[in-house]
């Protein structure tokens, strides 16, 4: 085990799913390895360790990122959410529920990354952030719907070798609809 602090290791605090974890890390340790090997948070998966598959996707300060190319020491001070932290107690996140109901997976290994990514995709779209297939990039353009084409492009950083893309896209669309309804309902309440 690395000493607490040296020129090549540090004692750090990681804020994961709202909990603070104090641990010494070798600077070479990625956030992914810190989660899996040090903190027993193995829901985040290692598919390629090179940023080429998306299986290790987590949310860092509410934005999706690949944890395999994030050094643990560089993640200190950030708010990290992993798949273990997206449900509300026993109640699954709507995206998780949609994946379960619509069979948005097969082997399940890319699934935590797909789900974390999908949660962020729905937020990114709702915030008006464009994608490569967004027709009108103009900031004045009316909000554009989260079409299957938009979902596919935005989710393309998450490979699924089992080929469950069709059901994943349906699951994301269903969760996005639920999300939009919640927002609309929320807006109405606010207006009222």
């Amino acid at each position: 085990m690395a000493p607490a602090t040296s020129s090549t290791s540090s004692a750090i605090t990681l804020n994961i799913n709202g909990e603070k974890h104090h641990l010494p890390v070798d600077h070479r340790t990625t956030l992914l390895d810190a989660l899996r090997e040090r903190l027993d948070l193995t829901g985040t998966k290692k598919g390629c360790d090179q940023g080429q598959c998306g299986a290790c996707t987590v949310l860092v300060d509410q934005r999706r990122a690949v944890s395999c190319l994030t050094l643990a020491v560089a993640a200190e001070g950030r708010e990290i959410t992993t798949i273990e932290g997206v449900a509300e107690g026993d109640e699954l996140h709507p995206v998780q529920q949609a994946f379960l109901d619509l069979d948005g997976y097969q082997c399940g290994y890319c699934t935590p990354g797909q789900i974390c990514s999908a949660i962020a995709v729905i937020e990114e779209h709702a915030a008006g952030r464009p994608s490569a297939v967004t027709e009108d990039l103009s900031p004045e353009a009316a909000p554009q719907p989260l079409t299957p084409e938009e979902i596919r492009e935005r989710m393309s950083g998450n490979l699924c070798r089992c080929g469950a893309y069709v059901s994943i896209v349906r699951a994301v669309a269903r969760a996005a609809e639920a999300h939009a309804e919640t927002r609309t309902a929320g807006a109405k309440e606010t207006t009222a």
Partner: protein
Amino acid sequence: MREFGYQRAHDVAGAVALLAADPDARYLGGGTNLVDLMKTGVERPARLVDVRELPLDRVESTTDGGLRIGATVTNSDLAADPDVRRRYPALAQAVLAGASGQLRNMATVGGNLLQRTRCGYFTDLAAPCNKRAPGAGCSAVTGEHHNHAVLGASDHCVAVHPSDMGVALTAFDARISYESPDGPGEAPITDFYLPVSDTPHRETALPPGALITHVTLPAAPVAARSRYRKVRERASYAFAIGSVAAALTVEDGVVREARLALGAVASRPWRARAAEAVLTGAPADGASFAAAADAELAAARPLPHNGYKVTLMRNLVVSVLTELAGEDAR
């Protein structure tokens, strides 16, 4: 991966001082390329200076109507920026065409400019590569090169620059500002990237230890009608095999101003000035667009297995310019 030190910089001067103290140190931005290269053993820094907390994370309008983009602005923030989308749409499109949502959230503007080639020999320590080990030879010239350079390459290296963003910045005359141990400096992006020559390991004009601080886009009304198109071997999440950033102003059926840059064809984003010269003042029609593409690609020197790129780029230039001219007519 060898052990390394890690420090966070909180201001530019401090970052530059930290790096100057250690010739084996590297700046760490989003890490999307550097950390990967450390894992494959191509990069072996002794120390990382994390620059993501530097106050360089804003996109600001300049007084002349251009934009000043901080080096730590993430790709995704750059693409979502209203001014970028309004005034330089091809830049937003180029950024959105690169990598994935996750990687764009991490990658920074400065890091994007400095990313290394994805030539497979560069990351294969068992293969000779002049860019990685000067003098070792180039494996691609006699090996796999169907996605290698057709313009501006040398016998020493035929790797292509992987950036999408850089292609759009090149079309729009971006200037790269940096802070070095000897003080600040600036270079137009076309001078920032060095020709391959016999020194493919020397990629930029950045002085040793220098930190990119900003990218400045001069005002360019022509850029408001601009487009980036990228061709790749799958529909998303892949590097380009050819890309075009183009902007066009057409008046009375005549091209008044044109900007054109090509990606994935050279060791650097390729400004197509020969094509621009042909376009300017020419009728905005297919014949002019083809003539412009041919003028630029006359210098192409394809290898045995990448000759298709000359045809691809000609077609892509014509297609993108035709689309832009069509928009202009509306």
